[in-house]
């Protein structure tokens, strides 16, 4: 089973249709493709967000994502994985992250995508700074994200 992997950290936006096309082009063994796109929201539970700045740890970020993609590939029979994380300054409505998983069956594609997102949130070295009317401040980690990631270590 061929499972091409693409991991990119970039300032530019991504094109989901293009990324899916790259993953599935001239293959007939893929039955399911799941995409997750994370988008900058204007409302973070409490405050109104004007913009979001994403900082990352170059080098480690790619390696950490790669480790989790490898883990996902060992857990589920995947036919392709693409992870794109943008960095820079974003306005509400703009894309931040894309995870694509392809598999023969839907369950593996869904679970692998959710697994990757849960780990991206809690273990990939990215940090968000929010700008709102109250000023700028670093986003605090959510306990719910740790809990989401912890699900995958139970069996």
């Amino acid at each position: 089973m061929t499972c091409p992997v693409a991991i990119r950290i970039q300032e530019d936006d991504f094109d989901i249709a293009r990324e899916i096309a790259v993953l599935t082009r001239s293959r007939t063994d893929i039955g399911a493709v799941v995409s997750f796109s994370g988008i900058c929201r204007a409302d973070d539970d409490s405050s109104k967000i004007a913009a979001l700045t994403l900082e990352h740890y170059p080098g480690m970020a790619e390696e950490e994502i790669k480790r989790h993609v490898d883990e996902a590939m060992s857990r589920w029979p995947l036919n392709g994985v693409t992870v794109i994380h943008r960095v820079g300054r974003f306005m509400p409505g703009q894309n931040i992250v894309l995870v694509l998983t392809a598999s023969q069956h839907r369950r593996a594609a869904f679970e692998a995508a959710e697994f990757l997102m849960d780990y991206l949130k809690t273990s990939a070295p990215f940090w968000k700074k929010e700008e709102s009317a109250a000023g700028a401040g670093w986003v605090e980690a959510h306990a719910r994200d740790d809990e989401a990631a912890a699900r995958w270590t139970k069996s």
Partner: protein
Amino acid sequence: MKVKYFAWVRERVGKAEEIIEPPASVRTVEELIAWLSGQGEAYAYAFEKPKVIRTAIDHAHVKADAAIAGAREIAFFPPMTGG
């Protein structure tokens, strides 16, 4: 050894990276954080809640009791909020 700081740790320390030479008695991440905290107000502020600080050695997450011997690059940062 090279040390890197990210997010508010970087802002508090006031620099993104530097070369440090801790004494040989500093063996673990925990001890390194304690030693850095003594290097001036900016460091004391950045590391005032050492339990909140996450550490990576050579691009891999490590715990507070990890040995720093042989490390090429140590990074300190707050809990991650990407994705």
